[in-house]
């Protein structure tokens, strides 16, 4: 990639700015609908932004409109996943990326907390076993944790 | 040819070539025949010119005279509506303008798609109404021949299939577009051998009528 960055790219600005393709607004309505449902029934909703017929800039506009809130989290599993609560509590953005930090999926999760942040039963069961072993061992040496792959 | 895309490529390819060739052959034969047979020699002294009044009539006969209008207003009004609608859909729809550009080399501005769409819907209804009137009016039904119904059908189907294709009401789209082009090809093939030739001969006939009056020195 470094070789490509040396190529001088001239961007001509002819005054015609980015057009509004109008695809962000329907998603916002969908989010509002889901947020209302969350409030009334407690049921979460997942909106997959992958298969939306976005025009150039629509996705950025949508994410920009949703903004950022108080919470930011990062999960390291098969690559980083960035999660943040938008400026609208209950509306989260979950950005799954692979080990090369390339986006693999982008979801809007309307929920009290995104599912991926919860600790899983299987992992908890595993943790009990390892903690027992850790307590039982003389040196109390740390065992390899799952993040050391 | 047995799959939608194969069907579309056949109608856009060899079938279109054949249809256009038959149309050209038929129409040229008709027109050359008409002009070569010509008119009977008129030995009377001409009292005026033929050409000016002839061309004038070509335009003025577009509007029905008051007597005709009084006798059958329905036919006159409905005829106007669906003829104009047909011409708008044919000539002012941008994909059709591209077609003419590719065949004739000429192009002209078109109308926005939703406008053409609305006009096409009106045309479809107009044609259906025309058929209904032909079937329900006793005089019209009595004088109608099989050719009248055939010509109605080959005129109606391209408009209908075009509307269906534009709205993607038939799937997959290559099938819808192929059907539309096929109905147009049928129209072209049938054209020179039926009263559809009025598209050309009506203007020739109007000229002749005007010319006759002009030669006699009366208002055309």
């Amino acid at each position: 990639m470094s070789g490509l960055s040396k190529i001088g790219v001239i961007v001509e600005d002819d005054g015609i700015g980015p057009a509004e393709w109008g695809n962000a607004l329907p998603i916002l309505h969908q989010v509002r609908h889901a947020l209302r449902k969350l409030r009334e029934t407690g049921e979460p909703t997942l909106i997959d932004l992958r298969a939306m017929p976005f025009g150039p800039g629509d996705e950025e506009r949508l994410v920009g409109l949703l903004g950022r809130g108080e919470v930011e989290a990062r999960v390291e599993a098969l690559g980083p996943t960035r999660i943040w609560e938008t400026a609208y509590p209950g509306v989260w953005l979950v950005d799954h990326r692979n080990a090369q930090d390339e986006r693999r999926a982008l979801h809007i999760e309307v929920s009290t907390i995104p599912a991926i942040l919860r600790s899983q039963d299987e992992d908890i069961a595993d943790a009990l076993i390892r903690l027992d072993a850790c307590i039982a061992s003389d040196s109390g040496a740390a065992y390899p944790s799952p993040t050391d792959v | 040819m047995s799959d939608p895309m194969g069907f579309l490529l056949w109608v856009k390819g060899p079938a279109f070539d054949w249809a256009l060739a038959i149309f050209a052959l038929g129409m040229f034969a008709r027109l050359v025949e008409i002009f070569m047979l010509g008119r009977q020699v008129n030995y009377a002294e001409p009292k005026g010119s033929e050409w000016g009044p002839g061309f004038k009539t070509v335009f003025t006969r577009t509007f029905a005279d008051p007597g005709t209008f009084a006798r059958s207003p329905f036919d006159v009004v409905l005829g106007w509506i669906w003829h104009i609608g047909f011409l708008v859909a044919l000539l002012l729809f941008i994909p059709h303008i591209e077609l003419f550009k590719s065949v004739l080399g000429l192009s002209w501005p078109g109308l926005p798609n939703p406008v053409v769409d609305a006009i096409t819907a009106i045309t479809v209804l107009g044609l259906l109404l025309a058929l209904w009137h032909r079937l329900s009016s006793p005089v019209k039904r009595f004088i109608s021949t099989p050719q009248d119904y055939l010509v109605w059908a080959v005129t109606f189907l391209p408009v209908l299939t075009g509307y269906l294709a534009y709205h993607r009401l038939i799937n997959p789209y290559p099938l819808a577009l192929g059907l539309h082009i096929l109905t147009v090809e049928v129209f072209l093939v049938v054209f020179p051998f039926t009263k559809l030739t009025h598209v050309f001969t009506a203007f020739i006939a109007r000229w002749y009528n005007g010319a006759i009056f002009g030669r006699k020195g009366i208002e055309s």
Partner: protein
Amino acid sequence: MAERKTLNESLRERGVSRRGFLKFCTVTASLMALPPSMAPAIAAALERARRPSVIWLSFQECTGCTESLTRSFSPTVEDLILDVISLDYHHTLQAAAGHQAEAAREQAMKDNHGEYILIVDGSLPGPDMNPGYSTIAGISNYQMLMEGVAGAKAVVAVGTCAAFGGLPAAGPNPTGAVAVMDLVKDKPVINVSGCPPIPEVITGVLAHYLVFGTPPELDEYNRPKVFFGQSIHDRCYRRPFYDKGLFAETFDDEGARKGWCLYRLGCKGPSTYNACATMRWNSGTSWPVESGHPCLGCSEPRFWDAGGFYEPLSTPLIAEGPTVAVAGFAGAVAGGALAAMAKKATAAAVAQRQPVKVEELEQSLEGQP
């Protein structure tokens, strides 16, 4: 029969937590264009699923489909090869060559008889054509395909060449190239067309097969409806311009720079079914129309022969001028001949005309009602 670990087992062995596994399932659901709520169902299926053996046969192809697959990131090709499938033979990607490679192929086919997935890219000369047009290790494409199909559970034809014949089959088709589905009638054939297909579509179809063990719902061309069910036209972000009648007339004119519809520049979007308008290319970076180029219709059969790429969809395929001129001339001659004959007959009748007196006429009419 080789003992294969389930996907879950092989991921846990690599130290991937349950949470990581769920992330994988969520991404896979997205990849298969399934609603994200299906991630738990996918997790349940992947837990039980054994990595299928995959044999990839490349015939008359440009290797673009393999290139496309190696650009797919989700899962990464390494992940795909190591975890999701067992790619037992791919003569471009694999390290082995020559007889060793062919022996590996034959061994994999024997070990997994009836269970492996056969992926084919590139079209192949038909059974009646000279097999020398395309061979691998001296074996004709046709023979290799039929041997491969015999023990396969399903066949995935990747790319327009394998699905429909593609470029080798374009006029005049010198090798007599045919599509896979023209030759394989006894096993399910899934067509993943496109020139090349979007990488995520290839992996999405494989993922679907892995998760559910069955092919996804297919259209009349055996393409998965989930990716090929919508036309480009119906999902194009420039559609409002088409509807309003705002078209780019030439490249880089004002309309083109404003992002107007590319119909007049030859866009085949209305008759093309693919996922480019929604999934886009290079992990959602862009796609041809967004870059300002009309859609070629590359996922449709015979798109190479379907009229010029820069001719609008509504134009005929064959040059009309000479045909119309010749036909018109023939018509003029015919019409002229008819008119001349009629005139001659009239002149002859006039020459032979006999005068009739009024009394004679009245007498002949008296007998009539």
